[in-house]
């Protein structure tokens, strides 16, 4: 992960990068522990630390069974899931932004999340197993992203705005299909299940629910991280990448496959969570530069920490839990306008 630079590479930039990387890691560790202690049932910081620790090393038990149960059975799965989904969405957003040469892309803006919901809803209506639901969510996500990317191609218009517009249109289409599916669903059984599934929440995630989805997030994550230098080359444009010897169809296909699999799996775990895939890579790029070798690892750390903070907020701010999407939406929209403003200024 650490660049071995010759003396001429910007020393200051290197130091800044390492500081931000370690700062991000520290923030993530802190948010992780905080997430274990915060909530209706207070568990002191040190105790939470000891409880988690006791699962790996022998530690004399000084805490109550309730504390242990709250931390390990309720908060630990929730915390791991939130961190994982945050990192995953940031990574897939950053990947989409590079391959589509468009800093305004994210799983939600491309319609991937909505497509995944449609796929899952169809599987639920067909009484599918959870594996089938997951598979259909992926197919739905891929369908959405292919639609979104193909329309500008047909129009022979590769501007930043047209891709976002088609993303909105495809997302809208998917939402209509979703409403239709809900309309035909059995009100007593299926409708509730679909609604419950698409809402998603970190609150209800258990380890047995998390495990089957884990590989479909971790493996594509690993692939993207290993291949991330290719993202730099792809982001230069098709002709440039090809003249540098990159097999475009294959490389881009792998990236689209991986980031869509990640996004769809996140929807399976926690429903649609907007904006994180846009905000986090963008912020990371402002901090450490566009080089994906640095930007993506930083994005993942920030994404995880950000999602934990949001989740902590959602469960402590009021008596009943706030939906994650509400808060990310509140933060995301002004940020989106800020990016638009920046883009506009740069083009002028």
């Amino acid at each position, binding site marked *: 992960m650490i660049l071995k630079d*010759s003396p001429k590479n910007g020393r200051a930039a290197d130091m800044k990068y390492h500081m931000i990387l370690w700062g991000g890691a520290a923030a993530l560790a802190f948010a992780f522990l905080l997430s274990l202690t915060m909530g209706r049932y207070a568990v002191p910081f040190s105790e939470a630390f000891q409880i988690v620790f006791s699962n790996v090393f022998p530690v004399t038990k000084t805490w109550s069974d309730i504390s242990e149960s709250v931390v390990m059975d309720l908060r630990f799965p929730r915390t791991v899931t939130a961190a994982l989904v945050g990192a995953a969405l940031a990574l897939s957003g950053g990947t989409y932004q590079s391959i589509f040469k*468009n800093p305004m892309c994210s799983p939600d803006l491309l319609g991937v999340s909505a497509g995944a919901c449609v796929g899952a809803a169809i599987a639920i209506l067909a009484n599918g197993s959870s594996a089938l639901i997951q598979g259909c969510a992926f197919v739905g996500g891929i369908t959405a992203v292919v639609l979104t990317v193909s329309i500008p191609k047909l129009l022979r218009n590769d501007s930043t705005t047209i891709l976002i517009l088609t993303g909105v249109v495809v997302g809208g289409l998917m939402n209509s299909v979703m409403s239709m599916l809900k309309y035909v669903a059995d009100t007593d059984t299926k409708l509730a299940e679909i609604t419950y599934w698409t809402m998603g929440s970190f609150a209800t995630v258990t380890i047995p629910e998390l495990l089957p989805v884990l590989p479909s997030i971790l493996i594509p994550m690993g692939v993207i991280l290993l291949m991330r230098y290719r993202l730099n080359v792809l982001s230069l444009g098709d*002709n440039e990448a090809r*003249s540098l*010897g990159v097999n475009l169809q294959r490389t881009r296909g792998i990236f689209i496959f991986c980031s869509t699999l990640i996004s769809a799996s996140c929807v399976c775990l926690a429903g649609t969570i907007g904006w994180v895939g846009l905000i986090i890579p963008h912020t990371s790029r402002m901090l450490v*530069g*566009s080089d994906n070798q640095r930007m993506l690892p930083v994005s993942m750390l920030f994404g995880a920490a950000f999602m934990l903070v949001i989740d902590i907020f959602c469960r402590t701010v009021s008596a009943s839990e706030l939906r994650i999407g509400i808060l990310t939406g509140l933060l995301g929209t002004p940020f989106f306008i800020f990016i638009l403003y920046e883009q506009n200024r740069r083009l002028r």
Partner: protein
Amino acid sequence: MILEVENLAYRYHNGPAIFQDINFRLEQGEILSILGTNGAGKSTLLNCLGNLYTPCTGEIRLDGTSMRRLPLTQVSRLVGYVPQIHYPVYAYSVRNFVVMGRTPYIGAFSRPKKEDYEKADQALEKLHISHLAEKAYTEISGGERQQVTIARALAQEPKVILLDEPTAHLDYGNQIRTVRLIRELADEGYGVIMTTHNPDHVLMLGGKVGVLDREGRMEFGDAGVILTEEKLSRLYQVRLRLVQVEGLDREACVASMSG
């Protein structure tokens, strides 16, 4: 290294041929300038040579092997491409941009190593633009960006460098400096192929010239032989003279204001 082109033709989806019957051969250290009017297909031809478009008929051979049969990475180790304008979306540092020229040598799961950064630095040094290394590629001038893209092609360590209208969008001084740089590259042994709208630049460079006419056929030969007043006047439909310039020891192409 020899680049051979045989009976090359290209057409877009059943349209008329953009060019046809293109034949030439380029040795190491030679310059080929491609002249032609607007829309004559110069860039399309260059894109075929750069492996970006697949020609409809004919063959391009690199050291005797057909380009179609070479893997993409192999072609990109032999042929470097400098596009006309490149609109960057992301603000990579110049150094990071130049190091991308090393992509053909870097595996899909790998990342540039110390040697690759060193090659990038050498390329920057060669063009005397080391001071730009840490600047954002989006924030340098058009002339600098041109040089940076040439540096990237050098980091690629190709045998042939293709340049699509390298002097377009440059001020007069940068145009001349670019022409001189092309001369230097050829002297160092690179084969250089460029398209240009300025016959004067071809006169400065000498070497080989290919003149694409409106029918998409190319006349190929030594610049000194092919570039005559009559031929250039007919190509561009303007009256012009080739005059020996005293004190500069070279011929210049000068157009008339009438006829």
